Each structure stands twice: as C-alpha cells, then as structure tokens.
C-alpha cells in the first residue's frame, strides 16, 4: 500500500465547468465519443442513401427532396448528389469517426489513467482540441445546407476538380471550401491532441511505470500520436494551399490551360499530382491512425479473456513501431494510376508488401495468444475475435492491391471498396465496439447487457461479411466504383448482387440499434459495475468505477510489474500492475 499522503483534488463546480467546458480528460474523452456517435449515425445514413440508390436507381426516397431540392428532385438522387453523399460519407467516417473515437475518444479517457496520471499534460489544450474538432464537424455538415450542397470530389478531394471552384460542378463552390476549412481545423485539433498524448506518455507516468510496463493500448495511442503529429502537420498546409487556390487565385494545384465546363480556368503552372502526393503522405498514415488504436485495444483486451499473457509482447510493440515507420513510405500505392513514373510505382510497391510482414506477425501473435486458451466468451472478447477475422479478410486483399500490375485493373473497382472497408472501416469499428463493451463499466459505472451484446455481435459480424465480401467479386468482375447507377450492359447483371448488399447494409445498420439501446439503457439501468469486473491487470481497474475526478483519489498508484501477468503467473490467476490490489498469495 502506498504510504503517500492522499491529497484529493476537488472537482470543479457548476454544470458548464463539469460537463461542457470541462478540463477533465475523462469528460473530454466522452465528448469525443459522443461526437463520434453522432458522426457515425450521420455517415451510416448517407451510406444507406447511396446503397438504396445503387440498388433501385429510379425509386424515389421519401423526404430526401426536402434536404436537397436540386440534388434529389422528386427524391431521386442525381449522379452529382450521389458523389456528394459519397464525399461526405468518407470524410465524416474517416476523420470524425475512425480518428475521433478510437484515438481521441478512448485515448483521452484511458491513456492518463493507464499511465497513472491525474490528467493530461495540458488540460486546456486538450479542451481546445475537442472544441476545435466539434467546430470542424459543424463546418463540414454545414456544407449540406449551403448553395449547391456538399462537395463531390471524394474524401481525397483530388485537385484540380477540388481547386477550381463552381465550374467543377454543384457543391464545388462554397461546399468544397467548407470541406477544406473543416479539414484544416481538424488538423489543428489533432496536432494539439497528439502533442498532449505524447507529452503525457513521456512525462506523467506514475512511479514504476516504465515504458516497457505500459499497457499495449497506451503504446498504440502513443505511437498513433507520433504518426498523427507528422501526418496532420502535412495535411494542414496542403489544405491551406487548396483554400488559397480556391479563394485567392493562386495556382498551386491547377495547371495552365485547364478547361472545365467549357471555361478556361485563369490559372497557370500548378501541379495536380502535388496535391495527391501531399494528401496521401497524410492519407496512408491516416489508415494506421484509424487502425493502430484498434491493434492496441485488441492486444489489451484479448489476454484478459484468454487468461493468458499476450504472446511476444516486445515483438508486438516492435511491430507497431515498424508499421508506424513504414506507413510513411507507402503513400504512392494510392497513386499507381495517377500517371506518376512507373518506376516510382515499383518503389512504393516494395514497402507496401514489406509492411504486411509486421501486420501479419501482429495477427499471428493474437492467434498464438488464444491458442490453447480457455476463452471467456464475453461480448468484448467476441468483438476482439471479430476484429482479427475482418482484419485478416481485408488484409489479404491488400496483398493483391500492393502490386501495381494487379492494382491497375482493380483500383477503380469495388474490390478496393471491399478491401478498405474491411481492413480500415469494419476492423476499426470492431475495435471501437470491443473497447466500448470492455470499458463501459469503468466509464459509466454500469455493466452493459451481455445478451444484447452477443446479439449485436453476431448480427453485425454476419452482416458486414454479407455487405463487403460480395464487393470483392464485383470488383474482380470489373464493376467500377463511384458510379451512381449501373446502366452499361456489362454492369446490369451485377445489379441483383448490389440489391443483396443493400439489403444486408440496411439489416446490419438496423442491428446497430441494439447497440445504441444497450448503451443508453445501461447508462441508467445497468447493474452496478464492480471496480474490476473482467479481472484485468492495468491501472484503470485499480480505481473505482467510474474513477474519481483526479483518477486515483489523490493516491497515485505505484506500479510493480507489466500488464501481462495472467494465467498462473507467479502462482496467481492474475496480478495487478499496481501493488495495492495484488492478492497476498502472489508474494
């Protein structure tokens, strides 16, 4: 037991200070998660609209005309509006869900607790990053309600279409400018957030918490912060240049003599490829910003339910570091078709294949961890297994796409859509679900329903396979992506499969209502959670559920061992990282 005098930090008073403009990392983490929840619902509705239109292009969607009289006259989506929906779906999901929830949300809540700190290193900067993120989200969503509606140049906003303004189509006026401003703000917020994460990890670890003893989730958030620090620092100036091209008449990305909509654009000398390079130098690491927290969360949760230590803990961390490093050398694999030098394609293909090695090792370590284990099949454990499954399914198609000659055929098809939704979207979402079911007792002090959780898992698991697996076949059959309807003769036979995907998507989306219901009900009605319901070792389980304002009631824990002490380690089923709660028999 720690002999230090407890000096309890009093929480602030007043509703605004405790719930709205809070400096407490736990409240800010929950705010991020709430924002992500709103964003993911928005993004999912957009995907439904797209799927409905793809399956039944002529059928009007009731109520849609009110949202966009031009884009969906009579409730039927125009090709341009389809692209707008796609752009907004991608942007909202990648930035405001896959970055915000696993990294900013759970990271904010649990990183300080897991290293035994009272709060983040810079609470005010932390609060600022959340509010800037929220403003960025509002600016983006505002694009639905201005002029010609949201932009249509995709979440990648390829220049010159994204740079020339109104001539490029509806939504390319104010809508696209709002997009660029929103992403610039988002970059600022994430840079401040990453600064906070790194400083907190390096400087605020409690006594005994060496780097080697940090939980894997903390390691993953730390490494993700380093990636984010570099990636967002590149996207931000790129967006500033894009805004200048749009509003100040510069020509960073717009070439000379460009004619769009029969009008010569008054720009000269810019390089559209430059935007792609800058964007993907951010864009590929962004994939890992979305998925590495998931890696950490799975590595953190899986041993708890396997009751076995994680296999190869040092190898795991080495792999995460290797992935982070390599993620900066592969951006060109998004650009095989961009007209860049074919020799560069080879140059980018090799590290792309190399990065699959640490990713494969990580997967094998998880499988090795559950091998021979007596798994406790709780909902978070199921989502961990689901994560491994969808990550492998999505990852394997990556081997094909990494090769320029194959990618030339597949890049513009649904194969890529299936690939990245599995490996980045669904896998990261499964990480988020696992984290939610695992940590909800700690965050809200209440247990979520296991029965509902299992229903949610199985319906979602089957659903996502029904949605995304057929896309690989469609892609191999040459079904192009980004088309709003399949009117060509060779595409018509694919429509029945598209209808199947649409029905599966609606069904899978509906299954998420179970999750929402479970989440909201358990917040108020769930059975009270004990301090350590899962018998886990890391520091968040040494404090109360939910933790007090300063996390440990003024008694910073003293860490004696790593997080990996499960399954008969030194005679006990498990050993807590902080000595105080360790069973006496362990000594």
């Amino acid at each position: 037991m720690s002999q230090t005098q407890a000096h309890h930090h009093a929480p602030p008073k007043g509703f605004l200070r405790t719930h709205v403009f809070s400096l407490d990392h736990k409240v800010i983490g929950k705010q991020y998660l709430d924002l992500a929840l709103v964003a993911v619902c928005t993004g999912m509705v957009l995907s439904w609209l797209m799927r409905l239109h793809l399956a039944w292009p002529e059928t009007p969607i009731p109520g849609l005309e009110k949202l966009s009289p031009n884009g969906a006259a009579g409730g039927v989506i125009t090709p341009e509006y389809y692209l707008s929906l796609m752009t907004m779906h991608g942007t909202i999901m990648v930035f405001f869900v896959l970055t915000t929830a696993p990294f900013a949300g759970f990271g904010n809540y649990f990183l300080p607790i897991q290293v035994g700190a009272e709060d983040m290193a810079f609470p005010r900067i932390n609060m600022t990053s959340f509010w800037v993120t929220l403003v960025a989200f509002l600016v983006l969503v505002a694009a639905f309600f201005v002029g010609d509606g949201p932009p249509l140049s995709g979440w990648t906003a390829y220049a010159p279409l994204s740079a020339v303004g109104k001539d490029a189509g509806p939504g390319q006026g104010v809508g696209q400018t709002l997009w660029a401003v929103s992403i610039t703000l988002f970059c600022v917020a994430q840079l401040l957030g990453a600064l906070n994460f790194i400083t907190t990890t390096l400087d605020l670890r409690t006594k005994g918490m060496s780097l080697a003893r940090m939980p894997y989730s903390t390691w993953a958030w730390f490494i993700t912060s380093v990636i984010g620090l570099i990636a967002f620092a590149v996207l931000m100036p790129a967006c500033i240049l894009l805004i200048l091209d749009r509003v100040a008449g510069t020509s960073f990305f717009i070439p000379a003599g460009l004619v769009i909509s029969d009008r010569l654009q008054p720009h000269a000398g810019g390089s559209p490829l430059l935007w792609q390079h800058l964007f993907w130098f951010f864009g590929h690491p962004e994939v890992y910003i979305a998925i590495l927290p998931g890696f950490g969360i799975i590595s953190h949760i899986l041993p708890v339910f396997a009751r076995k230590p994680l296999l190869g803990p040092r190898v795991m961390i080495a792999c995460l570091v290797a992935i982070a490093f390599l993620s900066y050398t592969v951006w060109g694999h998004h650009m095989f078709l961009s007209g860049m030098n074919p020799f560069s394609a080879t140059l980018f293909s090799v590290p792309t294949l190399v990065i699959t090695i640490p990713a494969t090792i990580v997967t094998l370590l998880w499988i090795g961890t559950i091998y021979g284990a007596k798994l406790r099949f709780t909902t978070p454990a199921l989502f961990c297994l689901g994560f491994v499954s969808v990550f492998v399914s999505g990852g394997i198609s990556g081997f094909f796409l990494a090769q320029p000659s194959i990618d030339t055929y597949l890049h513009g098809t649904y194969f890529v859509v299936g690939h990245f939704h599995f490996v980045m979207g669904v896998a990261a979402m499964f990480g988020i679900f696992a984290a939610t079911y695992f940590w909800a007792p700690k965050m809200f002090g209440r247990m979520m329903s296991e029965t509902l959780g299992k229903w949610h898992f199985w319906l979602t698991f089957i659903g996502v396979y029904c949605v995304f697996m057929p896309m690989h076949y469609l892609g191999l059959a040459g079904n192009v992506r980004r088309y709003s309807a399949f009117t060509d003769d060779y595409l018509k036979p694919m429509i029945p499969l598209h209808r199947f995907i649409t029905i599966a998507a609606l069904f899978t989306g509906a299954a998420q209502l179970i999750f929402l219901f479970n989440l909201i009900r358990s917040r108020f009605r769930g059975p009270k959670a004990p301090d350590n319901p899962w018998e886990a070792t890391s520091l968040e389980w040494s404090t109360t559920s939910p933790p007090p304002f300063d996390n440990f009631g003024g008694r910073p824990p003293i860490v004696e061992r790593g997080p990996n002490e499960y399954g008969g380690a030194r005679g006990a089923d498990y050993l807590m990282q902080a000595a105080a709660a360790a069973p006496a028999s362990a000594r």
Partner: protein
Amino acid sequence: MWIAIAAISMTFAALTSAMVVRGSAAPDWRHFRLPPILYFNTVVLLASSAVLEAGRRRIAAHLVRATLGLGLLFVAGQVVAWRQLAAQGLFLATSASSAFFYVLTALHGLHVLGGLGGLGYVLRRLGRLAGPAPVTALGAATLYWHFMDGLWLYLLALLALRV
C-alpha cells in the same frame, strides 16, 4: 516543446517539398529580388533571441519585455516587406514564387505571433509577486523563440535561393 517543434518542422518541410516540386519545370516561376528589409528583420529577430536568452538566464522581466518589442518590430518589418512586394506588382496570385513567398512568411509570422502570445503569458506570471518564478514556461518560450529564429534563417535561405 520539442514535440511541437517537430510538428512545425514537418509542416514547413511539407511546404518546402511542395515548393521544390511546384518549382521544377514550372513556366510561371518568376524570379524576383527579395525586399532588402528582410535582412534587417533577420538582424532584429536574431537580436531578440539573444536578449531573450539573457532574460532566461537572469529571469529578468525587462529583457523579456524587450524581446516582445523586438518581436513586434520583426512582424511589422515583415508586413513592410509585403507592402514593398505589392508595390512592385507581386501579389499572392501573381506567380507561384510569390505565392510561396507569402504563404511561407505568413505562416512563419503567425507562429511568431503565437510565440509573442507565449511570452506575454510568461510576462504576466513574472509580474505576479507571489509564487515561484515560471522557470519552465520561460524555458519553453525561449526554446520556441530560438526555433522561430532558426526556422526563419532556413526560410530566408530557401527563399533567397529559389525565388
């Protein structure tokens, strides 16, 4: 602070690479002479750094205040440089070279203003009679200020060589 410096370095590195890519084989790249006042501004900024270093070692509020003044003088000097360029008919949208000039100097200027904000915060805490001197904050602000110095020297060299 080192982490913030890494992020800012990355931003300017990205812009540098953009400038190199955009500058190669660009027919609209117009070379122009940098306004001479930039060299005066450089001296001012270097002097401010030296003054701040002395201020940090002695924890002297008046030296920090002097740095604040010199920093403001630098920003004012940069604005004068912009006016001189504009007077020559070189605006943001005139040519790629002038565009990069404005973007780089403006972003650097914004970061300098941020540094001035930080120095203002340190001064406010130095002015308080009670409590320990804000050694850490002053140290961080000084480090940042030196970095702004180094960054400016780099940008000046880059601009002098490329535009």
